[in-house]
C-alpha cells in the first residue's frame, strides 16, 4: 500500500488513542467523540464515496472496547459517515463555524442511535453523559477541521 492508503489507519489509531486515554470522570464527560471526528474528516476530504466500511469496522472495535452490544457503535458510525458524505457538497462552501453548526445534527443523530439502542436493551445511564460529548464535538470542529483537512489533503496533492 502507498502512503496515502495508510493515512486513514494512522489517523484512526490516533483517534482511538485519544478516545481510550484514561481521564478523570468529570473530564471524561467533556471528551469529544474522537473516532467519529476522524471518520467524518476522512469522509469529507476523500473524493470517493468510501469511508463506510472503515466506519463499520471502527464501530465494532468501539463496541468491543466499551463492552456494549456488538453492532451498536458500528450502526451509529455507519449512519454518521453516510450523513457526512451526503453533506459533503454543502459543507465545502461553508465557513468553519457554519460547518460546525451544520454538523451538529449529524453528531446528535449518532448519539441518538447509541441512546436508542441503549434504551431498547434497557441499559440505563445519565443522559447528560450521553449527549454532552455530541455538543462538545461540534464546538471543537472549527479548531480541528483545518488540521484534519491538512492531514488528508496533503495526499491528494502528492
Amino acid at each position: 500500500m502507498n502512503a496515502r492508503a495508510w493515512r486513514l489507519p494512522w489517523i484512526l489509531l490516533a483517534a482511538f488513542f485519544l478516545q481510550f486515554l484514561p481521564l478523570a470522570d468529570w473530564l471524561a464527560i467533556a471528551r469529544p467523540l474522537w473516532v467519529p471526528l476522524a471518520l467524518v474528516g476522512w469522509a469529507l476530504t476523500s473524493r470517493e464515496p468510501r469511508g463506510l466500511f472503515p466506519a463499520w469496522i471502527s464501530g465494532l472495535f468501539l463496541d468491543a472496547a466499551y463492552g456494549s452490544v456488538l453492532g451498536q457503535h458500528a450502526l451509529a458510525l455507519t449512519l454518521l459517515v453516510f450523513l457526512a458524505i451526503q453533506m459533503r457538497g454543502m459543507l465545502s462552501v461553508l465557513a468553519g463555524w457554519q460547518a460546525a453548526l451544520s454538523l451538529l445534527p449529524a453528531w446528535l443523530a449518532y448519539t441518538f442511535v447509541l441512546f436508542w439502542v441503549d434504551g431498547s436493551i434497557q441499559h440505563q445511564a445519565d443522559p447528560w453523559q450521553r449527549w454532552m460529548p455530541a455538543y462538545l464535538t461540534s464546538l471543537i470542529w472549527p479548531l480541528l477541521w483545518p488540521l484534519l483537512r491538512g492531514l488528508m489533503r496533503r495526499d491528494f496533492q502528492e
Partner: protein
Amino acid sequence: MLCMLALGLMVMDRRDDGLGWLRESLSFTLRPLFWVTALPSRTAQAVTRLQTRESLLQENAALKQKHLLLESLLRKFDALQAENLRIRELLSSSTKLEERVLIAEVLSAAQDPYRHQILLDKGARDGVYRGQALVDAHGVLGQVIEVHAGSSRALLITDPNHGIPVEINRTGLQTIALGRGDGQRLSLPYLPSNADVKAGDLLVSSPLGGRFPAGYPVGEIVETRPSHGDNFMEAIAAPAAHINQGRQALLVWSESYPVPEPPSAPPATTPLPQPEPPE
C-alpha cells in the same frame, strides 16, 4: 447493507449466539492500544513515586511499626478464627471463613464515564467465571461480566446496571444497593419508611443470591430521604472500595461456585478445611 449487518449482530449478541470469539478477537487486537493509553497515567504515577532516600527510610520505619501492630492483631485474629471455627462446628454450620482469591491487574479502567467497567488481566485460563465477585483492599468493587481466555471485563458497583445484595451491619437488614451511574454513590431504593437506617451505617455484602462472599464492606450510608410518597425511603451510600484508583483487584471464588482447576499462579489463600454439613 452494513446497517443491516450491524442490526443482525446486535440481535445475535443479545441472544448470546456464539459471538464471543468475535468480541474476544477484537478485544485482543485492542490490548496493545489499551496498554499504550495507560502509559501516561502510569508514568505520572511512577514519577510521583520517585522519592528521596530520607523519605523512604522514614516510610520504612513507619511501615515496620505498622507491620508489628498488624502482626499482633493478626495473632489475636487467628485465635478468634480458630474459636469461631470450633463454635461453627458445634453448630454444624458450613459457612466458609476464608475465600479463595486471586490477584488481577487492572488493564484499563473505564474510558467512558457512561459505563463503569474495568478490564482485568485474568481470564478463563485462570479459572475466572462470569458473575465472579471482585474486591479491593477496602471493599467490594463489582463482578465479572465477560470472560475471555486471558482477560475479563468487570462491571463496577457504581454502574447503573449493577445491583448487589447488602446487609446493614448494625441491624442485619437485608436490601439491595444499586449503582447511580455517577461513579460516586450507591442507592438503596427499596427501604420501608420506618426502616432503621441512618447516616454512618456500614453496608456489608450479603451472601443472598450466592454471588458475593458475605461480610465484605460495600459502603457507608451518607444520606437518607423519603421517596415515592411517605411509604418508602431511599438511602444513599458512598462505596467503600476505591473505585477506579487501584491497579490491582482481588477475584474471589464464591461458596456456591465449584472451585475450578488450580490456576497457573498459586492462590493467595487456601480454603480452610470445611466442617461437613449435617446429612
